[in-house]
């Protein structure tokens, strides 16, 4: 569905060196797959997504979407994909149902057909009762769902979702994830950017981790965790300002029970196959952390390992 080779994107800046948002990435996305771009703000995810959506010219390298070149077949590509942008670009002057109808007409879909599809999509995102409502009166979660319904109006082969759940409350996120699962089951290829680890683990079959415009790792969530992290992580917290100074003592206390110890401003992370054993070793050495927690490794840890910093910044 997507084939990128050495893909680059740079933006001209007045009186400065051009800003390189994407510095040469290779990506292959296969039909029916849920593929994720993971990375902090400014990693180049959105720039990549805009190029894939055929609304941003490629600065270098090659890019094929559905086998087509976005430079020459942009209109045709856009006709076959769905886009759910980071900010809901809904038409606030129209009602919920009109948003879907008019948007469908932009694709040249016939009147009766677009009416049928709009009704089906409203049903799918559970907004049928709000069809006549003004967009402004919808909650954040409803707006997102409407945006997803809108991105499906042309029966796309692939849907691009740029940070689909950013800013939503937990309940709204779960409703949205459920809808995305169903889309995937219908065979729609999903391409998702996110900076939420749990979202990537939930939704993506395969993902790439991006940092500073480059891909730093690639694989399934499980394989990335296996490759770059341990099975468990013990989080230990000392008093304010004491975390860094305690790192040495913790390291010698856990010894070979841990693979490594990561220092964060507010806590230490001990990467170990057996987290409880590592915590016990810390206590046995006479250290007194104010709080401890043992959890399974997540993509967050992978990211920390790869880039040396936490994701949510």
């Amino acid at each position: 569905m997507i084939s990128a080779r050495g893909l680059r994107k740079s933006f001209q800046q007045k009186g400065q060196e051009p800003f390189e948002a994407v510095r040469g990435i290779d990506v292959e996305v296969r039909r029916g797959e849920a593929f994720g771009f993971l990375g902090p703000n400014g990693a180049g995810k959105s720039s990549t997504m805009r190029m894939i959506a055929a609304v941003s010219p490629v600065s270098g390298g090659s890019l094929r979407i559905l086998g087509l070149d976005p430079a020459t077949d942009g209109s045709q590509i856009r006709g076959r994909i769905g886009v759910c942008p980071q900010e809901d670009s809904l038409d606030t002057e129209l009602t919920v149902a009109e948003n879907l109808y008019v948007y469908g007409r932009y694709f040249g879909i016939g009147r009766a057909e677009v009416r049928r599809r709009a009704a089906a999509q409203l049903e799918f995102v559970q907004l049928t009762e709000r069809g006549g409502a003004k967009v402004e009166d919808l909650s954040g979660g409803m707006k997102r769902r409407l945006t997803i319904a809108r991105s499906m109006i042309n029966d796309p082969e692939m849907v691009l979702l740029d940070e689909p759940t950013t800013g939503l409350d937990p309940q709204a996120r779960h409703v949205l994830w459920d809808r995305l699962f169903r889309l995937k089951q219908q065979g729609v290829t999903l391409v998702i950017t996110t900076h939420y680890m749990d979202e990537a683990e939930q939704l993506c079959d395969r993902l790439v981790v991006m940092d500073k415009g480059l891909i730093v790792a690639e694989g399934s969530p499980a394989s990335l965790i296996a490759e770059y992290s341990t099975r468990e992580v013990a989080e230990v917290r000392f008093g304010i300002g004491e975390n860094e100074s305690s790192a040495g003592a913790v390291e010698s206390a856990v010894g070979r029970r841990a693979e490594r110890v990561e220092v964060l401003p507010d806590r230490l992370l001990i990467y170990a196959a057996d987290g409880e054993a590592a915590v016990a070793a810390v206590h046995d050495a006479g250290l007194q952390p104010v709080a401890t927690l043992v959890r399974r490794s997540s993509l967050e840890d992978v990211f920390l390992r790869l880039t040396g910093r936490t994701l949510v910044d």
Partner: protein
Amino acid sequence: MSVTVAMATRTLTLRNALAYRHAWWIFVTGFLEPVFYLFSIGVGVGRLIESFDVNGHPIPYAEFVAPGMLAASAMNGALLDSTFNMFFKLKYQKLYDQMLATPLTTTQVALGELTWSLLRSGVYAAAFLLVMWADGLVHSWLAVLALPAALLIGFTVGAVGMAFTSYMRSWQDFELVTLITMPMFLFSATFFPLSAYPGWLQGIVACTPLYRGVVLCRELTTGQVTLDSLVSVIYLVVLGAAGLAVVGRRLERLLLT
């Protein structure tokens, strides 16, 4: 699936019609302004003016002012959507980003939006012509041609307005629009003839789009068509086409980055 220009234009027109359905009264206020001027200055002040010459023919003052206001109402019709409303859609509503995520191209979006400006101009002008006719201010069958003339004015004002808007950075910049349209409205031979100006100023006024529109409408509604009308038509077509070309290019630079 490919979308033709005609389909794109139809859909954008439908979109704008749906959006305006909830605010139709905005339509009315824009239309009333030149009507008020017609009755206040044209008819009211006109009572104080004995006789008035156009191309050597004496006509009542109101008949002189009316075509000027007809051209102004066509300008008004195109102006609002091509400036304020387009800026809102471009910068705040991100409506064009939404449209460009579909098969639509920047040229199709520009044409579709311009068509709406044109339609609004046409509606204003048609209603104004009716007011003129009802008030006995129309004396030639040629006045029927004033409607396409008004559409032409709408085309030019709309295209140039959109081109300007694509360079606007904030709402403050719109003071410029008022600064340009207000004097055009007052001084484009709308209320008094060009001969009132010194020679050098006549040349400048004769080059403004509203003056060309006023000349065209006046020659049609008074039935005294000269070569000046042809000059006006060519001028308005060329200026509008240039504006449209700029809009297409600018939308691409602003949105497809």
